[in-house]
């Protein structure tokens, strides 16, 4: 039996943590998937989650989003940015003990072509309008294989109990 989705590494915040790093990512899989359950110390309902690959701080990221917040569904785009937007995470203004849920898939992360990234993410709160839903398609304009990545929040730190697991997807 081939295990198609293998956990590479899991990190659980044991205290207030600003950034989560994954270094030395194995180059032996076909795709990567990051599954995160997060809440931050920011005094907001939700705040953005960002990432960089290989610590690339250049303006090499872009993305297109379909998202909903409140009663409206919208779509927007960011181009030529220095971070990749993974969605968002709830803050302290959201219902206590709620954590955002997101899946980030990076196909062909070792290819010599640019990297396309897809995200589905939700941030629930026990209110009619205090939520966010995202479907993101994003691009990292680099031909380098992804060997490291970090995940951070725009505001606040990740609270204890936030979990981050990096999976490798194999083709068998």
């Amino acid at each position, binding site marked *: 039996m081939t295990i198609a989705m293998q*956990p590479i590494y899991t990190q659980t915040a044991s205290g207030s943590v600003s950034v989560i790093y994954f270094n030395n990512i194995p180059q032996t899989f076909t795709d990567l998937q990051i599954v995160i359950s997060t809440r931050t110390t920011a005094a907001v309902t939700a705040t953005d989650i960002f990432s960089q690959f290989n610590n690339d701080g250049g303006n090499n990221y872009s993305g297109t989003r379909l998202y909903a917040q409140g009663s409206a569904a919208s779509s927007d785009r960011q181009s030529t940015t220095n971070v990749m937007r993974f969605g968002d995470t709830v803050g302290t203004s959201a*219902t206590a003990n709620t954590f955002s849920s997101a899946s980030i898939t990076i196909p062909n992360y070792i290819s010599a072509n640019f990297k396309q990234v897809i995200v589905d993410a939700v941030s629930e709160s026990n209110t009619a309008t205090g939520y966010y839903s995202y479907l993101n398609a994003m691009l990292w304009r680099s031909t380098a294989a992804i060997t490291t990545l970090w995940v951070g929040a725009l505001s606040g730190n990740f609270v204890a*109990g936030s979990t981050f697991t990096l999976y490798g997807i194999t083709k068998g």
Partner: protein
Amino acid sequence: MVWIAGQTVGSGGTSSLIFDNVPQTFAHLQVRLSVRTTASANSDLVYFWNAPSGITTAQWHILTGDGSTASSGNGTAAVYAGTFPAATSTANTFGSTIVDILDYSSSNKLKTFRCLGGFDLNGSGVAQLWSGLWSGANTAISSIRLNCGTGAFAQYTRVDIYGITTSQVTGA
């Protein structure tokens, strides 16, 4: 990702799909649905019913597109797995949805359900991202029960539950 259990609906259909005694040994749960219902309509809702106990204390939101318009919505008292083809839909069509429940056994987190799915009927259809918050309690999820909004699950409907680990597993 380890298969836990699955059910295929036989002739005559069934009103509920029940998975009790969900093991508490994984990090996350994933429910994969291929569903058609017997409702006398073009689509029918499927929701998580009476498991976890008290899941009617809930909030839900949806981001959806129907081929021409993107919209969002919300409600309370249920957590939905999506909408699926029903009796008047194109024959032999089944909707697909993947539901992720992160940290389902946590006693510190309210449980957020993230549901990505949809169906196409060659002229109509929907693409949807649902989120649901079971706001009633922090208790672990030990049962998954699914019901249709108005109809029953049609023959050949299939639902499987997988456990997702965050530690290395060995295939044999």
